[in-house]
């Protein structure tokens, strides 16, 4: 008891459980384990856990992850972006317009699209911080504006709302490959030859493995998660993100450039949406005016499941990534388990509600509110 003078009798020793409980990732970790146990018990023989099945839900989860990272950092900075879904549709359409209709080289089309979309993100952020209006309303307006353009532009130029031929236009393009290619093909071929993963037994691709590589989409998802987590927890800018969302006035008083932080986060969210869109059009080979519908809410749900507070100032990119994983595994898992797919929405509503209640409770523990 030599250390007694340095301890405060009023500070209760907290249990490890309680300490673990206030980590934002907790809900995501528990949920992930629960979801995998559940589907392992009820769908292990459905092909969900063979190479093809794993690739199936990994791709879906990776899609959610890409937009969840942007939404997560933005939410921690204290703002929302409801225009993510429209941005995905709009970005895909821009690539089709520039790359197919105007026949620009695909890499130029992709770069122009990134520039336009990030500019829209900056505009969102600028309006929010300058007017002080809730980002909810400002980005709701952007949601409609972008969706309107996404339908209007191809209809005016091409008299249709789906533009195909992107895969052909992107053939051999270096930048398109960064979003649309698959990597590790020799390894998968070797795994196929070795019998670890099954191969096609007939048809034109006979002898090729059923999973022939890891799509760049997954690489982007993992890269963005690592980058986001690093930015948030290890850099000075990360501290500013927390501060801007926690209390913008207090942050400003301490010299944090809150305005710049928020605008940059809106731009980053737009960047993530555009990455999603480019990967999607490269995979499908076409752009449609209805792409990305409701994605903004799916991103927000993944972030909330991941432990972030809707009010800002608290959250975790790893948590958001786990939220996205839960999302993808359940969506595809219900299909594998042969459950009516409309029940997915019921599940989504229930898990969202549970996550928000848990998060509010955790917030009370952290801040000592009663």
């Amino acid at each position, binding site marked *: 008891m030599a250390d007694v003078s340095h301890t405060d009798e009023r500070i209760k020793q907290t249990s490890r459980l309680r300490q673990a409980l206030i980590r934002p990732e907790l809900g995501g970790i528990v949920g992930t384990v629960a979801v995998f146990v559940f589907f392992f018990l009820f769908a292990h023989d459905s092909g969900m856990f063979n190479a093809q099945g794993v690739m199936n839900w990994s791709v879906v989860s990776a899609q959610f992850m890409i937009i969840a990272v942007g939404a997560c950092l933005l939410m921690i900075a204290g703002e929302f972006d409801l225009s993510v879904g429209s941005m995905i549709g709009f970005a895909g359409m821009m690539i089709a317009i520039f790359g197919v209709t105007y026949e620009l080289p695909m890499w130029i089309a992709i770069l122009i699209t990134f520039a336009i979309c990030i500019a829209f993100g900056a505009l969102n952020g600028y309006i929010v911080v300058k007017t002080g209006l809730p980002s909810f309303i400002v980005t709701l307006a952007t949601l409609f504006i972008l969706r309107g353009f996404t339908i209007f532009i191809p209809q005016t130029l091409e008299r249709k709302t789906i533009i195909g031929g992107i895969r052909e236009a992107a053939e051999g393009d270096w930048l398109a490959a960064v979003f649309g290619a698959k990597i590790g093909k020799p390894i998968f071929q070797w795994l196929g030859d070795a019998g670890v993963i099954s191969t096609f037994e007939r048809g034109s691709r006979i002898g090729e493995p059923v999973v022939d590589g890891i799509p760049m989409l997954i690489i982007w998802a993992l890269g963005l998660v690592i980058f986001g987590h690093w930015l948030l927890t290890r850099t000075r800018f990360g501290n500013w993100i927390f501060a801007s969302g926690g209390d913008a006035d207090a942050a400003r008083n301490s010299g*944090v450039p809150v305005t710049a932080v928020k605008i940059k986060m809106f731009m980053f969210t737009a960047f993530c949406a555009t990455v999603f869109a480019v990967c999607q059009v490269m995979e499908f080979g076409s752009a449609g005016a209805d792409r990305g519908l409701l994605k903004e809410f799916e991103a927000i749900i993944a972030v909330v499941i991941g432990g972030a507070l809707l009010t800002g100032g608290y959250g975790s990119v790893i948590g958001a990534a786990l939220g996205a994983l839960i999302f993808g595994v359940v969506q595809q898992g219900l299909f594998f388990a042969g459950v009516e797919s409309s029940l997915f929405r019921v599940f989504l509503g229930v898990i969202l509600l549970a996550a928000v209640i848990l998060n509010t409770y955790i917030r009370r523990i*952290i801040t000592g509110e009663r």
Partner: protein
Amino acid sequence: MSEPIIQMKNIEKHFGSVIALAGVSVDIFPGECHCLLGDNGAGKSTFIKTMSGVHKPTKGEIVFDGKPMNFARPRNAMAAGIATVHQHLAMIPLMSVSRNFFMGNEPIRKIGPIRLFDHEHANTVTMEAMKKMGINLRGPDQAVGTLSGGERQTVAISRAVHFGAKVLILDEPTSALGVRQTSNVLATIDKVRKEGVAVVFITHNVRHALAVGDRFTVLNRGTTLGTAKKGEITAEELQDMMAGGQELAVLEGSLGGTV
């Protein structure tokens, strides 16, 4: 006594047709706790905002460290060493103590061109600073939300001092605190003063002012009623000056002298 660190000479501030300050002069010396007293609407807030660069005086001169000063922004005042600790706008409850402590002044650890937040340094410094101020933390990652109001003020004050504040303006730091928390904050003020920092302590509580103050300036309706030294003035006199010698007289008996 040494040279004043900051001199406010005949400061006037008008907002449109309202005269918030009508010629206030105050000298503040390093290592003293200068109490600025006044009732609501006396012009205390306007006065300290002028001092910290938020407002520009309509008339009058501010001399800081021997030079006339003209801060365009609060940030410039902060950089020069004038720090303001606001009662509510100081800390972010959801963030850890060490993240709060270094908010806006994050220590950087460079790995090549990459600049990282140096958590190790931040944690060590925070723990040391808190120990010095008598706050026992469970760890540097403890959230500020778990601290009491008084402890939060103390963290904010020691943060300002750590980052080189020469003049520390405390805007009603004790007005929402309980008895024990108040005494903690007052003890903090005493420690800071002994380090040679000039403390400007804004309050409307005479007893809090008398507990730590070296000199007292009373503001009333935009003018100063003079500055008194410790021991030259009683609580009753201060109180009368704050209230402008009105209303309180009736209640004096039942309030037992001080409010």
